[in-house]
């Protein structure tokens, strides 16, 4: 059985039986794609397994990569200093050589949307890290900025498409130094609501969940669709 299992795992693109300690949360979009494929299979009409219609991209493997980065702590929290600084890192080594990357979407989940315990407005900045982290340096040297936006909090999830960055990381793994995320609390004098900065930042750190959804297309498993015979 072990030999046959090994062959099946190779077929799945795995080198050994996964033994996850805990199941990662499965995002809605993956559940929806899976259920749509199952529903299509029951109709007898073979679904196109090499095109992800829900995302509008070619692909036959979708991977949700969890963030493997870490928080950076600034010495003293003040209104001006960032509430949260995090290095985001995604391990793309699971992507096989012959796979072509067709989509990479960063998801930043800032916690459940709710309109009761409104938090302060946040200013979010996302940078590409282009230089290795120098030990002792409190924050990585931020490179190209991707996003700078104000969001009311709690906001739910924010999404950023990073196909070129992910392709570059996939082609040159050494370049994959991650992303630098910085979130400031915007002081809102006229709201009159006094937010305890410490608690607000602690709550934000607890609820932040980052992941990278990557779609790849394997030409060996997805032959170019043969021209329809006339």
């Amino acid at each position: 059985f072990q030999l046959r299992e090994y062959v099946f795992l190779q077929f799945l693109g795995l080198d050994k039986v996964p033994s996850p300690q805990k199941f990662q949360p499965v995002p809605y979009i993956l559940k929806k794609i899976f259920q749509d494929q199952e529903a299509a299979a029951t109709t007898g009409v073979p679904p196109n397994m090499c095109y992800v219609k829900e995302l509008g991209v070619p692909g036959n493997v979708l991977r949700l990569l969890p963030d493997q980065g870490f928080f950076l702590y600034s010495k003293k929290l003040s209104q001006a200093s960032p509430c949260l600084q995090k290095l985001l890192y995604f391990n793309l080594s699971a992507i096989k050589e012959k796979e072509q990357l067709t989509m990479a979407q960063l998801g930043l989940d800032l916690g459940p949307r709710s309109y009761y315990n409104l938090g302060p407005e946040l200013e979010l900045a996302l940078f590409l890290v282009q230089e290795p982290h120098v030990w002792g340096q409190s924050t990585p040297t931020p490179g190209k900025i991707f996003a700078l936006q104000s969001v009311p909090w709690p906001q739910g999830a924010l999404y950023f498409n990073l196909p070129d960055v992910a392709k570059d990381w996939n082609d040159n793994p050494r370049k994959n130094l991650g992303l630098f995320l910085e979130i400031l609390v915007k002081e809102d004098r006229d709201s009159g609501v006094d937010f305890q900065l410490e608690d607000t930042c602690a709550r934000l750190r607890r609820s932040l969940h980052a992941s990278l959804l990557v779609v790849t297309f394997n030409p060996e498993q997805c032959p170019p669709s043969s021209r329809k015979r006339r």
Partner: protein
Amino acid sequence: AAVPALRASCKNLCHRHQLFINFQDLGWHKWIIAPKGFMANYCHGDCPFSLTTSLNSSNYAFMQALMHTVDPEVPQAVCIPTKLSPISMLYQDNDDNVILRHYEDMVVDECGCG
């Protein structure tokens, strides 16, 4: 003149048999998130000459079955899948990545003599 083929009882003839793959039986439920299993099915049964003229068989199976009736040394045609379909699998790998992948030819929909 067609050589009278032995009347093989229907249940021994080539057809699709149900086979449900339960990932728990294989111990794979610890890393496969969905589905919990799937109906894979398999093909099994005889392919006498008479069948190759009716069931969706291939021409060479017809010729092989014909020759088998003339010379039993020639093996009979065999019962194989003639229509397959894919499934999607949602699983977690060793890096805690959640992966949704489609696999062709995992379900046997139809069988025939090939």
